[in-house]
């Protein structure tokens, strides 16, 4: 096979590139809108971090939900492709959850006068991130491939509880400082704002980018990489056997 043909065979299909470019355009437009189009309230420019902070959490939630779906499918079918998808979901979800955490901490410094406190929402967010980080540790700790996949699937399903708790805790606990974007905030919430029409449109565009397109695109690329890594493993075995 010629080099050009081999490259063509290895390169991902056109729609994958199309989706990637769409994500880049939407994220770029969303970023420009957050900086130049949306108004800010009395919080000042730091409030613009919200357009990354909130959508990235929903992006993480989407990725973790895909892990749950893939884990369930794996437990039913024992098909490796579902296990692969579950791993990818955790990795991409973890990246987005970290972005959510860091942007929240930087926003909190001027608005709450602290980088971090043990508010119920923040505490659950930390628990969620540590739980999903432990997913990777768990996989690395089990040698038997079948057992590893089965345990990881069960863990991936149970771990979604922490993400759901992070999402709903501000509706359960009245003592949270974290403001709610949809619906009324808790009485002690600090840093709430009324979303003007420009803010709402900007949020929608960024939700499309960060909460839908970016996780899907990253997961697709990461999935292909996972496939290639497994192919490499097979080739290694073939080589050693030969």
């Amino acid at each position, binding site marked *: 096979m010629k080099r050009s043909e081999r490259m063509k065979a290895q390169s991902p299909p056109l729609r994958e590139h199309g989706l990637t470019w769409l994500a880049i355009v939407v994220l770029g437009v969303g970023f420009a809108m957050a900086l130049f189009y949306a108004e800010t309230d009395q919080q*000042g420019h*730091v409030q613009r971090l919200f357009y990354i902070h909130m959508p990235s959490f929903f992006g993480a939630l989407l990725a973790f939900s895909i892990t749950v779906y893939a884990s369930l499918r794996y437990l039913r079918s024992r098909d490796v492709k579902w296990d692969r998808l579950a791993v990818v979901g955790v990795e991409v979800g973890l990246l987005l959850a970290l972005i959510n955490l*860091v942007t929240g901490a*930087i926003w909190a410094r*001027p608005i709450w006068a602290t980088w971090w406190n043990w508010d119920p929402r923040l505490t659950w967010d930390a628990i969620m991130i540590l739980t999903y980080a432990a997913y990777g540790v768990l996989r690395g700790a089990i040698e038997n491939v079948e057992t590893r996949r089965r345990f990881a699937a069960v863990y991936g399903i149970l771990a979604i509880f922490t993400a759901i708790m992070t999402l709903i805790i501000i509706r359960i606990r009245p003592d949270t400082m974290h403001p709610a974007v949809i619906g009324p905030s808790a009485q002690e919430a600090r840093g709430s704002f009324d979303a003007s029409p420009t803010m709402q449109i900007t949020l929608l565009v960024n939700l499309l980018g960060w909460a839908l397109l970016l996780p899907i695109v990253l997961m697709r690329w990461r999935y292909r990489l996972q496939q290639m890594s497994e192919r490499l493993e097979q080739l290694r075995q073939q080589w050693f056997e030969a």
Partner: protein
Amino acid sequence: MRPFILLFLGWLCIWPVSAQEDADLIEIVVAENDLSIFHEALAETDWGLTLTQDGQFTVFAPTDEAFARAFERLETTKEDFFAHPDRLASLLSFHVVAGAMSLEELRGETSVMPYRRSSLVIDRQDDELLLNREARVLQGDLAASNGWLHIVDTVLLAPGEFAIEIADNLSFLVLGLAVVALLVSGYLSSLFWRWRLVNREIALLRSRIKEAARNDQSFRS
């Protein structure tokens, strides 16, 4: 006779405290030399009257020096700040908590809710109390007939006031965007390098396997 003298001396010892407890919170503020701006601020708003009345309050009183620093921080002057009674009343309502709480009682709390509905975080640092992460109690437990007064070294700024201070400050936004860019580019470059590495190794192994097969075939033939 001796017990009477001892009793009289004992009464003399507690007399200043009992006399002070007859004074209301405003009278205690007036008696302190270093609280003149706080007193002026109270007098400009309804708090001046409220804190003379019955009821139980806990008041955190910033010193004159603390006010001077706060005006500098908010890029304003005392005259300008006092020209807006609503804002002044709002600031003061962050310094008054319903119910009388001594320092000992405050030590047992992680936050209290002042009249302005925004919680006031309490931390303990080396036996000292730290309010709102920055204000230290200089002199606490001044007892009044209607509550406790604690003198603090910093004006307590609620998030709203603090936000005004940083309204034109881009640094936090820039920091946030830089960290996001770092995380995303770090992840993407790790994907890219892993991709390249795996691709290269696959190509290498394939060619080796093919070569081995060819060698094997030629050996057999």
